[in-house]
């Protein structure tokens, strides 16, 4: 397995996670459904996690993997609270369309 990971250059992980992050950004800008937007935020968090793990594995230091663990913890808490907020919004407005939620806009 060590030899296997040696064959993949670190640059490739950089490109992959950059691309994943940009897909996430695009999803946030592209969609109107708030649940999809939350999912795209998860996608961005995961691309950053992947990069942290890649750097940590290639430098032989497991600090990065502990950080990824904490990022997962925070992401789980964020999703729980975010989805609860969405359910409460849906109950009051009857939709999760972010273009309807414009009371605080101007």
């Amino acid at each position: 397995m060590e030899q296997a990971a040696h064959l993949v250059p670190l640059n490739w992980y950089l490109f992959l996670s950059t691309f994943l992050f940009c897909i996430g950004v695009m999803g946030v800008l592209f969609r109107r459904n708030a649940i999809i937007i939350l999912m795209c935020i998860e996608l961005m968090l995961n691309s950053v996690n992947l990069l942290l793990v890649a750097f940590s594995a290639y430098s032989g230091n497991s600090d990065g993997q502990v950080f990824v663990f904490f990022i997962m913890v925070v992401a789980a808490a964020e999703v729980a609270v975010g989805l609860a907020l969405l359910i409460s919004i849906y109950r009051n407005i009857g939709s999760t369309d972010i273009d309807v939620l414009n009371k605080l806009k101007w």
Partner: protein
Amino acid sequence: MSQLLFFTLSAMTILSALVVVFTRKPMYSVLSLIVCFFTIAGHYILLNAQFLAITHVIVYAGAIMVLFLFTVMLLNLNADSDVPKSGKLRIAATITAGMLFITLLASIKSTTLGEFAFPPASDKGLVQHVGQQLFTDYLLPFEISSILFLSAMIGAVVLAKKEKH
């Protein structure tokens, strides 16, 4: 062999991520996000980070995506309830994301990474090593994260509860 695995996993990751963004039905988005998370767990195994791979599958596929699935089902979302943004905004979003990608690529190109040598016998990602570090060097953040979870749990219950009129 590992390059082939890397390319297969990366193609699956990117394809499922694109499906998440572009499909009209929220249920398909959730399901392809699950596929995306499993392929990322495959990447972790390829990087010899077994502890994180298991944690990733348990936390994301087991907890977070189930939450998403239940929310989509609870709110009864389907393709009809999802009105796409106007054409101008969609083009603007695509251009913005593309610009960000080009900027990040340029900054990657201009960075010299230095020599990262993979250590010959790396057990850094195994449960033993990460767990030891988690319970010695990072004990305080680990304990504090339990308080964060408690507050998130209480907050979720309070927010999602029906208000009495």
